[in-house]
């Protein structure tokens, strides 16, 4: 039965989790990705393998909510507690199926900025955020990249102010020319809908919009000329059961509000 009472973040997490397949190796960054993977492991992907930058490798969901990528919960009954070197080396060896990241700006080729806005070469104009963290490595090396982003015209932009994390760069063939071992972005889940990438043009297109949203509303919250799939659909809302499982993962609403 579809839930009638759920928050937007909850819809996002449930929808995003469905992009993860069972048995995949998923490298999850800080923030919502950590909740999404716990939810995926508790539902349709019990054999997923979780990697984090903090050095955790685990086949089971952590016993408590992980707030950081080196959260003590990630190491309690984990399968291996290596360091950043060991987990990120798996990216370079090409062993990671899904790199799962967030960011502050994204363009139509899936290039992501998590460094800051303004002109970096004129420091007085540049507002720093955090920096790459592991996002650049995940996006360069994972077989595919899953991104989660709030929908906002300042975030879905024609050109990112600082290219922290490569998507398809300036289009078809660019990743291959630079010898990137990973396949690039395949899905972007926002607060309004779900995007995929055209295999030929490498450009992002709208594949789904959330219940209560519309193609027009999404377009109004995107600064580049957004391509819409002819098969665009409304996203299936989460079920009551999914919402219950999710709220048990984050009982105090740290992530879900």
């Amino acid at each position, binding site marked *: 039965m579809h839930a009638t009472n759920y928050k937007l973040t909850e819809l996002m997490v449930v929808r995003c989790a469905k992009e993860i397949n069972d048995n995949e190796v998923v490298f999850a960054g*800080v923030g919502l990705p950590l909740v999404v993977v716990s939810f995926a492991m508790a539902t349709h992907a019990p054999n997923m393998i979780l990697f984090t*930058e*903090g*050095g*955790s490798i685990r086949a089971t969901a952590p*016993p*408590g909510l992980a*707030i*950081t*990528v*080196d*959260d*003590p919960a990630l*190491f*309690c*009954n984990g399968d291996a*507690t*290596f*360091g*950043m*070197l*060991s987990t*990120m*080396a798996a*990216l*370079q060896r090409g062993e990671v199926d899904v790199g799962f990241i967030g960011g502050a700006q994204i363009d139509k080729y899936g290039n992501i900025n998590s*460094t*800051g806005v303004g002109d*970096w*070469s004129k*420091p*007085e*104009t*540049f*507002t*720093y*955020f*955090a*920096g*790459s*963290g*592991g*996002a*650049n*490595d995940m996006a*360069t*090396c994972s077989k595919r990249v899953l991104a989660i982003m709030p929908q906002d015209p300042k975030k879905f932009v024609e050109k990112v102010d*600082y*290219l*922290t*994390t*490569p998507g398809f*760069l300036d289009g078809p063939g*660019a*990743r291959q020319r*630079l*010898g*990137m*071992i990973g396949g690039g972005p395949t899905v972007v889940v926002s607060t309004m809908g779900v995007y995929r990438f055209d295999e030929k043009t490498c450009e992002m297109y709208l594949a789904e919009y959330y219940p209560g949203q519309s193609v027009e509303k999404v377009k109004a919250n995107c600064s580049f000329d957004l391509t819409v799939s002819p098969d665009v659909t409304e996203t299936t809302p989460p079920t009551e059961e999914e919402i219950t499982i999710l709220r048990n993962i984050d009982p105090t609403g740290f992530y879900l509000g």
Partner: protein
Amino acid sequence: MAVSKLMTLKEAVSKFIKDGDTIYYGGFQIMVPMAITHEIIRQKKRDLTTVESSTDVGGLDLLVGGGCVKEIHSAWIMNWYVKAVYAVRRAFQAKTTKRYDVSNFGATSALMAGFLGVPFLPVHGNIGADMLKYNPTDLTVIKDPFSGKEITAVRAWRADVAIIHAQVADKLGNVMSWGTRGVTDEFGAMGAKRGVIVTAEEIVEPEVIRADPDRTVVPYFKTLAVVHCPWGAHPSACRGYYGLDIRFSQYQGKYERDPELLPKFMDEWVFGCEDHAAFIKKYVQKFGQESLDRLKPKLGYKPKFQVDYGFHDPGVWKGVPQFTDEYIKA
């Protein structure tokens, strides 16, 4: 060589950190060396360069806000609980602190290169990204001498001094940590040219650490100073000792946000505290013992297999004749 390196935080910082030093800033989102950070600010150290992969809870933001840092080489700097590092942001805009960005694995590889004592390492990331464009100090593209293909090279980072927080140390300077192999601490610390300053929750006898040397992340010969410092990573978490203090990180972050307010935080929580014990005492006075108690972790995640390192005495072969058979010629 049983020289005790136990000393106060004040002694450790004044003796081993000099203006202009390059510092490996330990920890990640947890195990941040906050007590040492406060002491460096208190002693008004200047023109430091920091190297690390990623750092949270605004420790580095306070160090920059305290006017101690000239250059930052990093992949990620945050106080995640206010979603920014405001002092770093202001210092970059004012050009008082330069930033040299790389990716996390770029940073880890830079520290690994320092650990290995080689000048650089190739990495897959950073190519095609703006870090490569804006940080030629740490990143460049080279040709793989074997295949001829292009790959990013990251320059080795070697600190003068590493500052880390750990669960346990002994007076000699052996540092024991568990739960993750110290993120990049083992490489960042071991790569330091002069050595390591460690704060630890507990000081144990050297025999305790020697009984389980797998858990040693820094052996004593690299250690300059050992400081017994409970709550030394607060408000970040220390595995097995306390959890993340989200409320204090947010509280501190609200001061970081405002350049007018930050000096008030410094006056009260840094300059107004003689040492970290005084900081914790102030915390309890202001926010109550119940806030500190709330940080108690869920324990009981202990090894279920008791290991025994064991060894074999080759002396048992004394006097035992060579094994032989008809194929072996004498």
